């Protein structure tokens, strides 16, 4: 059912990674992604891969969940791999030369390289969302973007909108689930028939969903006004983001690995 969607799903825990300052987590995640693209050989990539696997171990997130986060990108991975496999021209003799297909050793190498890179990329990003609640994540984004306030960019409002949107994703999913069930109980068939029939079958679901979403938005706006919400000016926070020694230690670790990957590029 819809509940099984995992992208951006948070799994509560109490590991070092869970407790890290979310701003550090975001920045380190970006550094990790850059690292993946800086790495030019298998050695560097292997180090990056092992690093993220170990991080999953530290965060105590099950291997199965990691695989789950990869499920949606399987087609992309396969597509990239196939493309690289057939289109990379290498030196020397092709390994396979049949009809229009030619495969060189370099092709195999590159496609493997690309596969590992994409997988590490998604797994790395998922670690952030698995270990950080969406609300804290938006807090961190607001904090990281706050220099833009000088340019009159509505950072707080943006973060508030993101918070509200994130907050209501599960609510709306639950509601969709409920409405789907209610219409199914009235004999609506949602997954049979042609395209037109399927599109028509969505009407009994979308209309109630929109009606309730607008009602909710209206009620929320009213509730916010009742509590005198008037934007970011002078607001304090319930959760203060604070950097701790752990954050600096982890940053040092990531930078060390990053340094190793760069040096590794020159040596090998």
């Amino acid at each position, binding site marked *: 059912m819809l509940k099984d969607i995992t992208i951006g799903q948070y*799994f509560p825990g109490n590991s070092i990674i869970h407790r890290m300052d979310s701003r550090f987590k975001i920045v380190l995640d970006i550094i990790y992604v850059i690292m993946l693209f800086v790495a030019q050989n298998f050695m560097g990539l292997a180090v990056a891969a092992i690093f993220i696997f170990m991080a999953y171990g530290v965060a105590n997130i099950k291997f199965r*969940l990691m695989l789950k986060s990869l499920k949606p990108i399987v087609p992309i991975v396969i597509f990239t791999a196939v493309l690289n496999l057939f289109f990379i021209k290498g030196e020397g003799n092709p390994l396979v030369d049949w009809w229009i297909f030619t495969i060189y050793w370099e092709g195999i190498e590159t496609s493997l390289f690309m596969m590992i890179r994409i997988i590490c990329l998604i797994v790395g990003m998922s670690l952030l969302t698995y270990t950080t609640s969406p609300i804290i994540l938006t807090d961190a984004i607001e904090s990281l973007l706050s220099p833009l306030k000088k340019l009159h960019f509505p950072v707080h409002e943006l973060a508030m909108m993101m918070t509200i949107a994130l907050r209501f994703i599960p609510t709306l999913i639950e509601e969709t689930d409920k409405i789907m069930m209610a219409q199914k109980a009235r*004999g609506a068939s949602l997954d049979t028939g042609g395209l037109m029939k399927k599109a028509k079958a969505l*009407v009994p679901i979308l209309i*109630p969903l929109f*009606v309730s979403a607008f009602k909710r938005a209206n009620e929320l706006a009213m509730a916010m006004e009742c509590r005198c919400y008037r934007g970011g000016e002078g607001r304090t926070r319930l959760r203060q983001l604070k950097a701790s020694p752990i954050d600096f230690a982890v940053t040092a670790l990531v930078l060390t690995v990053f340094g190793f990957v760069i040096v590794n590029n020159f040596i090998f």
Partner: protein
Amino acid sequence: MNAVETKNLTYKYSVGTPFETTAVDDVNVTIEKGEFVGIIGHTGSGKSTLIQHLNGLLKQTSGDVIINGRNIWSKDVNIRDIRFEVGLVFQYSEHQLFEETVYKDIAFGPKNMDLSPEEVDKRVREAAASMGITDDMLERSPFDLSGGQKRRVALAGVIAMEPQILILDEPAAGLDPIGRDTVLEKISEYHKNSGTTILLVSHSMEDIVKYAGKVLVMNRGRLFCYESVDNVFSKSKEIQMIGLDVPQITRLSLMLKEHGVDLGDDIYTIERAKQRLIEQIKGKQEC
């Protein structure tokens, strides 16, 4: 024949994640045809999950659901047919309304059954009448009605499918006292006129004893007891122990019992308490 039968019914949410919970735990229950059953239990006791198994909206983790003698998940049963046999009205059912007019909305279910237009029309009008929806309301938009009216439209939408078993999840929740009584009264009337098996989920013991013949008590995903209304209050103490309310008059009779005035274990209406009390007083005077 039994209308509903469950065998070792168990359902687990989010299997394989840290959120895994057992919502329904090994429930065995047999409900006879034509019965009016009240289902009561705490929030999170598994009542709503239980009833969603009875028309195949949820598939059990283990166990069997048997409706009118047929195992609903066996290969030769079309689950859509089961959904027409077992009508399910959800909590806050007015949220499912979507059509331009009340008439069209009530007709949604019967139309899905591929009935002839005359039959659909007949069923819509009958169902509307049984829920006290007037003809002029049928042509209005469901979004213009009051909360109680919307609720009755949603109920009529399921009743119009003429299910043999009708399951109602808190049909009176969130309504004002008049709306509440009207809805429950209409359901009770419908039960008497049609002989449909009815399962009514409610938080209110008072409502259940007023309308139902049998009570099914759920506690933490397990079946606590399934008894006739007359017998269930012999377990008043236990029912209160699991955090459920018993009717006020039952509580009073329990207190009287502690003070030596035993009116019996089946007190749940004021009339009966009054009658017993008079009998006792008369008995004493004769001595």
